[in-house]
Structures are given as C-alpha cells and as structure tokens.
C-alpha cells in the first residue's frame, strides 16, 4: 500500500503519515469492492481526523474532507 492522501490542512502526504480509522458504515453495504468512506487520522501531521473516499480496488483516493464536516 503506497498512495497519497490529501489532508485538508497539510496537503498531499504519504499514507504512512496517517492512521487508518476504519470504514464508515454505509447503508448500501460494507466491505465491498469499490469506493468507500473511511476515517483517517493525520498522526504525523496536524493530528486531525478526516474522511477519505477511496476505491479499495485501486487505492485511488477520490476526495478528502474533515470528519467533523462529514454528513452524519
């Protein structure tokens, strides 16, 4: 696994700077191939939680935003 995540505060950073916080459960089903919403924590940066939408088949990160700004 080696991709970049764009922290809303710090910009594009190596995934190793982040701690994975699990998938945000989705009504449409969980743990499926395709894009999913996940929580990430910028451990070695600004130390804030964010949400990344990532296609787990390709590790393409489709977008990131603050967890606190995520629709509940």
């Amino acid at each position: 696994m080696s991709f970049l995540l764009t922290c809303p505060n710090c910009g594009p950073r190596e995934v190793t700077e982040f701690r994975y916080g699990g998938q945000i459960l989705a009504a449409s089903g969980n743990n499926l191939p395709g894009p999913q919403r996940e929580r990430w924590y910028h451990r070695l940066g600004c130390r804030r939680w964010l949400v990344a939408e990532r296609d787990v088949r390709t590790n393409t990160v489709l977008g990131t935003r603050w967890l606190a700004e995520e629709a509940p």
Partner: protein
Amino acid sequence: MTAPSAVPLTGILIDSTRSLTFTFEDRPVTALAGQSIAAALYAAGVRVFSRSFKYHRPRGLFCVSGDCPSCLMQVDGCPNVRTCIEPAREGQVVRRQNAWPSADFDVLRIFDRFDRFLPVGFYYKHFHRPRWLWPIFEHTVRHIAGLGRIDLDAGPFPTAVVEHLHTDICVIGGGPAGLAAAAAALAAGARVLLLERGPQLGGHLLYDGGRPGEIEPLRAVLESPRAQVLCGTTAFGLYEGNLVGAFREGGLLKVRARHVIVCTGSRQQPFLFPRNDLPGIMLGNGVLRLAHLHGVRAGRRAVVLTDNDGGARLAGQLADLGIEIAAVIDQRVEGPCTGDWPTFTSSTVLEARGNKRLRAVRLARRDANSQIIPTTEQEIACDLLCLVSEPAPANELLLQAGMRFRPQGGRWLPDGTVPGLSAAGGAAGTLGLDAQVQEGRLRGAEAAAVLGYAVGFDFRSALADFQLRNAPAPAGAVLGNHLASLANRKSFVCLCEDVTVKDLEQAIAEGFDHIETLKRYSTVSMGPCQGKMCSLAASAVCARVTGRDPAIVGTTTSRPPAVPVDLGVLAAGRRHHPVRRTPLHHWHQAAGARWLDAGWWKRPESYGDPESEVRAVRQAVGLIDVSTLGKIELVGPDAAELLERVYLNRWADLQPGRIRYGVMCTEEGILFDDGVGARLGPDRFYLTATTGNADAVFQWLELWRDTWRLDVVLLNQTAGTAAMNLAGPKSREVLARLTRLDVSAAAFPYLALREGEVAGVPCRLLRLGFVGELGYEIHCPAAYAWHLWEALVQAGAAFGLRPFGVEAQRVLRLEKGHLIIGVDTDSLSNPLDAGLEGLVRFDKPLFHGREPLLRLKAMGPRCRLVGFRIDAPVAIPAELEGCQVVEQGRPVGRLTSVRFSPTLGGCIGLAWVPAAESRPGTRFHFHWAGREVPARVVPTPFYDPEGKRLKC
C-alpha cells in the same frame, strides 16, 4: 603484424594512473582506481568466479552488468556482492563462496556427475522415507546448496538512511533514451529526476561503439536547476502510486513522481546449448563492457554466436580491440559476412569444450528442417565465446507496475498503457540509437504535456508516426528458434538455480506446464537474477514443449525487488525508536534508578530495593513520578456529553471539584482504558489516561467528538504537565508543610480536586488512592516539576519519605486488587467478567459497548478475573505471570499478575478462572515448570478491604 592484444586498453571508468590493492583469498590483487573487483580479478588471470548453486559447476564472468549470478562473492564479510559492478577498494577482503575447499578445486563438483539422481524437484520426491532421515537430509542440502554465508563477526556495517524525493517526472536510466526523455521534459518546464545505476550517464553509448558525442547536448540540458541527476542509483521497485524504490551508497531512496519514464535499456540473453555455462562464455555486451569500461580484454581468440546482425558488428568491434576472431556462427540462414574471418550461417554450437575454462566450441550446420548435418561438425579452438542475441527489454520495473508485454515479430514489446507510466528505448523494445533517442524525446514531451506543461511541438502525431515506423515486421524469426533440438542435461536455462532444458522438459512432463507452476516446481527464475537471464528462455522452452503460442505462455509475474537489495538498506529508517523522558528523568538517574520501558517512556522501575519502597509507602510516605500518565482537558458545553458516550460510567452528575474513576470500552465492549476524571467546572473536565494509551485515548476522544459533532475542545497536556503521587499515611503532613491549602480530611476529602500552590508552584491536587493509602496526585507545569519534586523530598525527609518506582507501585496496587488494563486484560476482556460491572451504567441511553455488554450480561459470565494466593513457596513470583490455569490437564485460564506482598507476607495475584470456579475459597491449579501448583481464590482487595486507609 604486432600482437594487438598486447596494447593496453583505456577503460572509461578507470584511472590508470592510480592503483590499489585488495586481498583475494589470501593473495594480493592489484586493481586500477574505478575498476570493478571482477575486472581486476579477470586481469589477474582468475577465470572461475563462483560455483553454481546445485552442481557446483565452475562459473566465470558472464554479463558484466550485475544482471547474472556468476560473479557473486563475499566482500568484507558481505555475501553475494555482484563483483562485476562493485568497484575495487583498497584493503578489501574478497572471497569466493559456495565451494569447498576452494572455488578452483571444489570437491562438491561431484554432484555434477550425479545429476541423474538430482532431477528437477528431487527434494520433493526423495528422502521422505524413512521419516527420520529428512532433518539430516535437509540440513545437508542447505549446507551444500546456496549462496554466500552471513558472517556474523563482520561489520559493524554503516547504518543506511532513507531519503524521500518528490518530482514531476522520474526518468529511470541515463542511457540515450533516458537522457532524451529528461531533456524533452525539462524543455517543457517540468521538474525531472534522473536515476542512473552506473557511475556515469550514457548507457550503451559508453561501450558499444555508438556516437557518444551525440549525447553531449542532452547532458548539457541536465544542468537546469529543475533537474536532479543521481548516478550510482539503482531502482529496484516501481510501486503503487508511482513510488520508486531505489538504493544508492548509504541508503534507501523513495521517490514519489507524478510520472515515471522507464528507460532501463535492454540486455542480451544466453543461448541454450550443452555446457553453455563454461567460464569463457560471455554475453557480447559483457565483453565490450569489460574492455571499454574496465580496460580488460576478455580473451585472445573469440568465437561469436549470434542470431542477428549484431554478431557481425561485435566481431568487428572485438577485432578493433585486438581480439582475434576465430569464427562467427550465425544461427540464421543468411547473415552478413564481414571481416577476414569465417562466418558459418545456418549453424549452431553443439557443445562448449573445456574443463574449467573454454578451450573450443563444436559447431555444425543445420538442414532446412533444423536437423544437424553430422558431416559438417567441426571444432574451433578459442578461449572466448561471445553470445549476441536479439536484445530483450529490461522491463522488470514496467512489468511490476502493470505494463504488459507480448511477443510481436520475434520481439517482446509493450502491449497497452498504464497511466502515469511510459517506457522508451531498449526497455520498450526499441532498437537502434536514432529510434531510441527519438522515442525518449517524444515520451519525455508526452509526460510533460500530461502533467500540464506546454510542449512546443505536436508530439502526439510525432509519436503516432514513430510507432508506425517502428512497428515490428509482421513475420520475423520465430522466437527461440535456436532452442529446437538441443535439449540436454547440461544446457542451462537458469544460471542461478542450475535449471537445465532437460529439467524444464521433465517438469512439464510431470504436469507443471503453466509458466507459473513450472517456475515454482523447477525454481527457474527464482534465483538472484530474478529471471533476467532465464525468464524468456523458460517461456520459450515451455512454448516449444507444450506447442503453445509464446504469447499465451507469457512470462512469470515480475515483483520487486528487481535487483538484489541489501537487507540493511531495506531496514533503513526502521531503527528510529523515540525515547520519551519525564522532566524528572535526570533526578531519577542520579538517585540510582533502574529503568523500565513503558511504551516510549523511560520510567524508574525502582531505586534498588522495591520491597523497602513498598514498606515506606505503607508505613510512612512515598513519592512516585507519574508524569507519563495521559492528561487531557476538555472544555466546551458538550464536554460531559462526550464523556457520557465514551465511558461506561456517569459523568453528567459529577460535581465540580470532585473526581470519579472511569473505564471505557471499544464499540465491541472490550476494555480499552481507565483513568480518573475531575470536573473543573460546568463545562470543563480534566482526565487522566494510562501511560501506554495516552495517544490512543486522545485520538479516540477526538474521533467521536468529530463524528458526533460535539462542541468541545480537547487539550492534550500529557507532555506539558508533570505529575507525582505523594502517598502514605504521612503524606498529609508532608504536603501541609508546603502549601497554604487546607488539606484536612474535612476540607480536602477523598476523590476531591483542589487547585493551589505547593512550594510556590501552581498545582492541581487530586486525592486518589491507587496504591491504597492516603495520597495526593499533584499535577504541575512540567518546567516546575524538578523544583516541586525536590521540595517534597526535602519536606518528607523528616517523615521517612522514599521515592518509589513502577515495581513497588505494581505490588501496592496488586495488594489493593486494582487491575491494569492491558496487563490483566487482553483484547477479549470485557468489564463484566473483569469485576467492573458496578461501573457500567446501562441506564445511559448511549455509550460505547452498551449493546454487546447487554448481550454479555444476559449470557452470564464465562470467566472471571479473581484474586488468589499461593501458599507454596515461590522463588520469583513475577515469573509465574502468564502461566496457564489448568483443570484436568486442560488450560482454562491464566495468571496475569503475581507478586510477593511484603505487607501480607505471601504470594498474591490476579488470574482469569472459569466463572464456576471463581468463588472465594475455591482451589485451582496452574501449570508451572512441568508441574501443577495449587492456589486458592481470595476476595479482593487483599489489603484494607474497607478502604479506611485511603479515605482517612
């Protein structure tokens, strides 16, 4: 004619004015500065460079590019060094490996005679019966087969470092295509990083008689401030997200590029004929590299074996170097006849002759059906046989990154594209200097354009035009036609693993006819070269034997690393282990502390005598540094609500100035952390978390604060705030000497928080009782910790105050029966079984773990954490931690904490036992040192069950 071979050569890499000496198997060898170890050894007359993996056959210098296993040696204790590219250094100690007693005379060569008994996959077939023979056999095989040995006495080796680089375009390979690609991308305005594994730019122009002058303008472009050129840097992996893994002197390089252009060139492939591994048989380009880079002639009289026009060209180049050409053997029906040497077309080598070095080759013509014509057989004496095959793309990195190759017109060419990746030159299967340079230029422009830079010409139509002109001829030579009829037990496909054509045929006959299973069964392409010299040949043999199309057979999956990488390089950066010290670290050090690692922290385990430290706390007063505790302040209207939701217990009803013990679980109802929380005001709380979990708890609180969008600010004060616990019956008197606060039992009761000055330092004082005595946890700004600690120690001197460490604290808390999460619990422990049921407030509508804990409550406990005593004498009680509780010989639980209690005069502990066996008075047994030891369940706390001492 004078003997031209007497004229010394000038190698590009060497400085012939400076020489140095290294030791080769106890004799000195002289090398010129810049020369590789192997070149110096070759010049000194060494021909046997290694012994092969399985049969211990002699192997000589072969590729001179670091691509094959033939020259691996032990250098300064480091095994498997590729000596053909490793520069010789003064004082080096070089030895050959995998031979006994020596590589020149290796008695293990006997295996070569017994190859019939060592067929492919022999280790899967033999020695399984009788079974007792297997370990002996395995040990023997491991000893005989293999590569170098790790010298445990060698070193210390320098620590490798990791370097991270970011760039627009990373060009891998500094040959003509790579230089052109870099120049074109730079011209468009991109930032470019160029990695070249050799010591100099230029690639094959440096040795194969091209036009080196042509690259000078390209080299000049690289002076741009947007360019970075790293020679001596080998890319070994192309990973997800365009991450290039590379190594260079001193460490690991991680390059993140928006686009990668692979220009790693091509490499000639060995031909398959009997005894094709004899020393003296070399790749044609290897001979050129040895001469032009290192200034060493590979032989006096050469035969060239080829299947393309490159053979005739090489013969001319060798003649210019002063090497006599005995013959050119062209496997094609027609080939160019140049020079004053015989050219044999439609011919092939039947066998290489010689013992430890090549003496002659036997050749013959083939008829129209590829059959050997016996009457044409003849032998030609020579000391060098140069193999000049159609070059194959050096495409490992491209394959790793997902680019596909398929045979077209006898060549392997890219098939399809991968975003962010392109190839140019030999790596893309492009032949000819002009085409390689042009392709590099177009791919460099294309990459820059993709990244948004303005390219000044229509590169798209130029690229389309280029591809049209360089498309392979539709009907070329059949791939691998030279393989037709020379299957032999001594025709080696894989030099690394000693796999022959016969072995592959045998494996296919046994059913391993897919290229991937063929690889795994025969081990072809699994050696140090990772298929660089054998992958295509194995594929071709498989295609021929199975009658399948080579495109269907394909090649095996290419994975990183593409080249051998020192383990030390891969370990670079992994040694980084932060150490955290409390503000009082050096006080503890001076007081003779024995250190304990607690997470990243250093904590005093004791100051020499933990037992007397325990007694001091019980009888007088003790002081422990607890600055490592996590300390979190919560401020905001939703502070209580956040705590209500993450902790099991209630917080909303806690009065300001009061403290409560709190426990939190994961969403699955597993114990996560515990600590205390004090209410500072209506919307202000102060929490502690355990040392090891401080960061995790803070992140956990932030996670749920953000998820629920609660209005609360979290402040992590762990590092900025020091804390010390003053505990013992005399602690109130000590404290009273240093503060104007009213510390009487009525004014400052148990589980109360006060703020005020102690020894002039602004503090928060928490009246707690973790160790079971009257005590005050004093929190203050870290900068004042030393002053406060010393003031307490001085004030306490008259009362017998002793500093105590973690070991004494463990005993004290165990006497109170307090569990430590992570020591007495694991990732399956829930609060109900752990005896914390009273803290779980199921009347709260929402908290982490509520649903699973309700279900567990309904099911009833299966096991319990209980206190126990051991009546039998035990030498070192702590060694019993982790022992299994057994019932009729079967494990049913385990001991988690065991200590000798000086207060109680016995061995006590905590253990998980089956719920049915958890009543006080029940006897159970645990397994220790081969026997079953009895223990009995007793109620906790062991000490002061009513808690009178801590509440006084």
